[in-house]
């Protein structure tokens, strides 16, 4: 695949309010850098993430979407991330089945104490998506400028 020079992917990170958003805050507190093209959207729980949101992000020009939630067993709402885990597994598998690069989607469990893991995860994910290049397979040309 041809990688455009200076390609900076657009990454949407959905973070659950209780663990991962706090984890992201912690990486800020600790001044741990990660690429600026990662933009975080706060959701109450990873189980709030509707697959429609992921498709929407790709439609509007995102190159990668990542969901961060509490570690299984630690969900603020007890069971939310268990549902999210099944939903995302099935959705990612379906996207892969349609030939859409599976590396563009990811789920990571990041606790409120894992600021370093948050930054590292974002660095790795951005790197992986950059290597893939622009999202061509789920783009909507009508949404391109």
């Amino acid at each position, binding site marked *: 695949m041809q990688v455009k020079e200076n390609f900076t992917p657009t990454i949407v990170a959905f973070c659950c309010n209780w663990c991962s958003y706090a984890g992201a805050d912690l990486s800020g507190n600790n001044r741990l850098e990660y690429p600026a093209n990662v933009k975080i959207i706060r959701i109450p729980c990873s189980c709030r993430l509707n697959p429609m949101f992921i*498709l929407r992000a790709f*439609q509007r020009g995102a190159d990668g979407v990542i969901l961060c939630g509490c570690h299984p067993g630690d969900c603020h709402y007890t069971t939310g991330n268990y549902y999210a885990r099944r939903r995302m597994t099935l959705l990612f598998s379906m996207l892969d089945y349609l030939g859409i690069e599976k590396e563009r989607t990811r789920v990571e469990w990041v606790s409120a104490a894992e600021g370093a893991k948050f930054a590292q995860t974002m660095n790795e994910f951005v790197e992986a998506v950059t290597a893939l290049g622009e999202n061509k397979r789920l783009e909507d040309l009508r949404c391109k400028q």
Partner: protein
Amino acid sequence: MQAVIKKKAKELLECGTVDRVLGWKAGEFFYDLTPAVFTTPEEIDKDFVFSVFSGANMSKYLIEETKKEGKVAAFIKPCDSYSLVQLQKEHRIKRENCYIVGIACDGMCDMGLVREAGIKGATAVSEKDDKLVLETIYGEKEMPKEKALLERCVHCKSKKVVDFDEMIGENGEENPDCGRFDEVERLEAMTPDERFAFWRSQLSRCIRCNACRNVCPACSCEKCVFDNPDSGIAQKAAASDFEENNFHIIRAYHVAGRCTDCGECSRVCPQNIPLHLLNRKFIKDMNELYGFYQAGADFETKPPIMNYTTNDAEPSVVYQRGGSK
């Protein structure tokens, strides 16, 4: 078979067990049988048809029919019966308002395959042993029935009617080794590029006629998200590649865990898109990752997507399994 069914339908009306009968009648042609409601024995005599083209799944129509006053009888094939149970699980069908006659089934046919076999100008169909006998304007023609079976009947998952008040014919068994996932496996073995090309070639034919949605028993929402301007994804046309993908992914996702794999979506698609392969992918994944589950097989089990165990596979399992890079 038709004679027995018609007799039963009339009997149910005459003895007052039911007020209406849900069945099939001929459409424009003898092979495009459409669901219809009959209220008198005379109507049944005149219009009721049951043949190898009675593929339509009757369960969805019971949602509206059982809301009405009085009782309705429906003839339910094995694959329809799974949808019937699933819809009851979802509180959509009032079981007390319907009388279910289960009918044994050895497969429904696809007129396209009859034509492909070189039989043109057909005007009527009947069955003789394991052959289809077609009256055509060029005389009587025969072909083996198995050559004309719908895809879903070739890979029939079950010949068992799971919920009925009475049976016509002998109830059959489930067939777990029906090979219905073979085609999904074939796709999984492709490279992502090949899969992408395959699905583009299929989904790009979509004309957004919504036939798949309208026929699907699981797609029986009061208002579909695609028709609801507040959903943020309402769309009437397959205006772009994305919309084609989006519609079918969301549709398959919305019915995941509730889809009984009745195959109606693929049967009615005017563009012959193998939509069942999307649903079966979800079913196969759920079976492999969370244990076997057949929607509509019973009244109790939770669909895997509304359930969990604490040691489920992580989403990263997708990177490891299936499809080469």
